[in-house]
């Protein structure tokens, strides 16, 4: 809706209502076949527009050259940079130079193109007739006739035995690609029910692989991530066997003895010296539960905020996780180091259909 310049000065119009100025300009010519003219809408401004467009295209050209210059001039990477140069700084500098040049080149081309079409071409609007999409009834009937005749000639309707045996023949072939997918992976078996923890396997600190004595965790309230000794490079094992150790002040820890279908799943007897071990794998979708709030004893999963009460068997307090974090039975080995007393007694991590 174009607004004429001599719009009467009056109260501001309300948004959404049409302009009070009469808009009577219908730019579309009435005749269906306009006489041809390649002249721009306004000859005077066209001269200016031409210069602007050309200037933008020259700018794009220069920026394009700048891109190539930046590529050649700004080295990145260990092998080409002088000794001692900062590779990250070099990469970011190169990124900035290449990106700036390319931005200018592309945007100038875009701006030039749009000014070109808006200022240098006549404002021609044309009308095209919309034909019916559906075919003429006669064509449809003829098609149906031809199709039915073809089908009749093929005997496909008249000989069901042939038709059905052909369909039968394709059925196993259609299934074959699915069958081929079978070897994408092993069957789950009971993998998800077990971890590598077993009686006597020492807990070691994640990343340093240092074994722990109870005295090493002297301050109550700290949380340490530990892994089974010797598995630091086994991502598959760690994805299930990661454990957090939390030390409590005497009297703060209350773990009820819970049973799940006859299996003991949490017990105060599984703690050593007020140190409790829980699976680090969230029972929701398996993120590591990495946040611990000392004052409230809350373990928080940063992914979806499932919250567990560490002082009370890691029961769920809030969030989408439906199960407590499984507790790992702890003991001291012959040398006084913390070790697992057994594997987890229930599956760790997210629930699954066969879990029960």
């Amino acid at each position: 809706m174009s607004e004429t310049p001599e719009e009467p000065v009056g109260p501001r119009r309300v948004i959404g209502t049409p302009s009070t100025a009469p808009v009577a300009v219908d730019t579309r010519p009435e005749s269906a076949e306009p006489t041809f003219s390649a002249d721009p809408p306004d000859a005077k401004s066209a001269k200016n527009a031409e210069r602007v467009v050309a200037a933008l295209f020259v700018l794009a050209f220069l920026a394009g050259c700048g891109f190539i210059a930046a590529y050649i001039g700004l080295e990145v990477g260990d092998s080409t940079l002088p000794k001692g140069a900062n590779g990250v700084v070099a990469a970011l500098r190169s990124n900035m130079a290449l990106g700036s040049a390319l931005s200018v080149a592309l945007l100038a081309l875009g701006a030039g193109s749009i000014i070109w079409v808006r200022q240098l071409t006549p404002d021609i609007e044309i009308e095209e007739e919309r034909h019916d999409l559906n075919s003429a009834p006669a064509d449809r009937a003829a098609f149906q006739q031809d199709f039915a005749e073809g089908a009749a000639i093929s005997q496909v309707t008249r000989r069901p035995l042939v038709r059905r045996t052909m369909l039968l023949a394709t059925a196993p072939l259609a299934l074959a690609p699915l069958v081929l997918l079978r070897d994408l992976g092993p069957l789950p078996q009971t993998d998800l029910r077990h971890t590598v923890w077993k009686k006597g396997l020492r807990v070691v600190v994640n990343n340093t692989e240092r074994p722990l004595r109870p005295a090493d965790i002297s301050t109550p309230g700290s949380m340490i991530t530990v892994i089974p000794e010797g598995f630091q490079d086994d991502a598959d094992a760690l994805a299930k066997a990661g454990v957090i150790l939390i030390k409590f002040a005497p009297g703060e820890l209350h773990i009820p003895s819970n049973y799940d279908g006859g299996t003991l799943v949490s017990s105060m007897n599984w703690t050593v010296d007020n140190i409790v071990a829980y699976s680090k794998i969230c029972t929701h979708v398996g993120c590591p539960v990495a946040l611990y709030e000392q004052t409230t004893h809350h373990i928080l999963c940063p992914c979806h905020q499932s919250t567990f009460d560490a002082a009370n068997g890691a029961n769920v307090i809030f969030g989408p996780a439906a199960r407590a974090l499984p507790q790992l039975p702890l003991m001291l080995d012959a040398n006084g180091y913390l070790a697992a007393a057994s594997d987890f007694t229930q599956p760790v991590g997210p629930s699954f259909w066969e879990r029960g």
Partner: protein
Amino acid sequence: MSDTTTAKNDAVKIPAPVSGVGGWLDDRFHGAKGVRVLLKKVFPDHWSFMLGEIALWSFVVLLLTGTYLALFFNPSAAEVVYHGSYTKLDGITMSQAYATTLNLSFDVRGGLLVRQIHHWAAIMFMVAIMAHMLRVFFTGAYRKPREVNWLIGVVLFTLGLLEGLFGYSLPDDQLSGAGLRITEGVMQGIPIVGTYLAYFFFGGEFPGTAVIPRMYILHVFLIPGIILALVTAHLFIMFHQKHTQMPAKGNTEKNVVGQPFFPYFLLKGQAWFFFIFGTLVVLATFAQINPVWMYGPYTPLAISAASQPDWYLGILDGALRVMPPWEVNFLGHTLTLSLLIPFIVPLGVILGGAALWPFFEQWATGDKRFHHINDRPRDAPVRTATGVAAVTFYGVLWAESANDLIADKFTIPLYTLTWIARVLVVAGPAVAFVLTRRVCLGLQRKDSAMLRHGVETGIVRQLPDGGFVEERRPLTDQERAPLLARQAPALWPAPGSDDGGVPAPPARGIAGRARVTASRAFAETVPLLPNGNGDGRDNGYHNGHGTGEHTAAEAAPGGPARLNRGSDSADELAIVASSF
């Protein structure tokens, strides 16, 4: 048409290459007639028609940049010790995938730029598809004969989600690994086949070594191939069926008005491509995205707070966060509703609902006509209200995926925030539906009033008797055209019940009654003018709101109750409308 060609010959000299090369090609391919149609193809102009084009050009940029990245990226989980330019990770053991991502970022000139363009283009691609789909939905451009293209669009959006998920999981950094872990957890939660699916996809236990090369071939070959094929089909169907157009003077169901493809759309399309590409490069240069080097290589026991997926998967993550801990155990099996519902419901409601909507609308309205003129959103209150309800549902879940950030920045307790989201995700869409429908009807009344009384000019005149009147001017034809485009859908079944109130046979039974109810909801429209046509300008009809108001309602088989409801809501609507 041939007359014009000769007429043009007078004005323009045909350049030699056009006749020469063109002639050479035409001798072999017989293209002159067909390609001429292409040159003259009409492209209607409306800003909202450029949204789909953003998606198209972003996809082109994705193909170009993705091909370049594939020259340097090695999709392997094999472990290497890193010794590259990013010295903070020097000596760290990591996968080839992560190491080559670092290398192409820091040791390849332009590598970082192209990687960031690629990521920004993926985000832009999904934003543009969504905006385009909303435009098509709210203007009813999906209606017959364009249902198939709408379905293709829904599939393209779904494929975009998957393509994006696999794409940002490839670098094997800490954040993408966490995303994969969540993907695996959700897969495990699928009843009966979940563990098998997860084992087959990951080639065994999570994380394994198989998943990166598998995602890679899906990401660079299979999914983009399908997307490319569907985009092509989408464009060809659009081309064949011709564009829709907005209601305006001169636009009818029988024509397409706009500018010809050559040279207008060619130049505009070129400009638009450069603008979009340029914008993506600006973002890639100045707005860092996915700095994988800061996250470190993936290890299963590390995580960072505020782990969010790319925006288009936010709705799924938000749904995971908003769920209460629902899990059912029975007969030795576990049904984890807190995984299954977030996986199925948001995508089911949004994508399944989008796919089914055109057919539902046809079923409810019995409208089998062709539609080439788009609706203004207010003119289809039920559709618009449903759309806004869906946007609200989506928006709540999407915002919930950043609940930890929102809680932190606005110091709202996290659990309170989640509870708010739990309430809003159910109540929000219902409220949005009711409000939007009323606003639409109110806006319709405003349009009707403008048709009837014209526009307030702001000029007040004093009458000889001392009274004051505000001058109005009638609408121009251009202004009237979009307003007059409003059509009340016919009530289904149209000649319905007999005089005794016995419903017509198709309106009986549960489905029949549901259809009648839906049909009435769709048919509720404020009539354009008391006399039902658009010929009167300011016809002085100032107090006769009653008579023509119920044209649509009177056709309803329901009878008097329906009439009352119509007039009540109409009065309330006037209030709603005036407050907007």
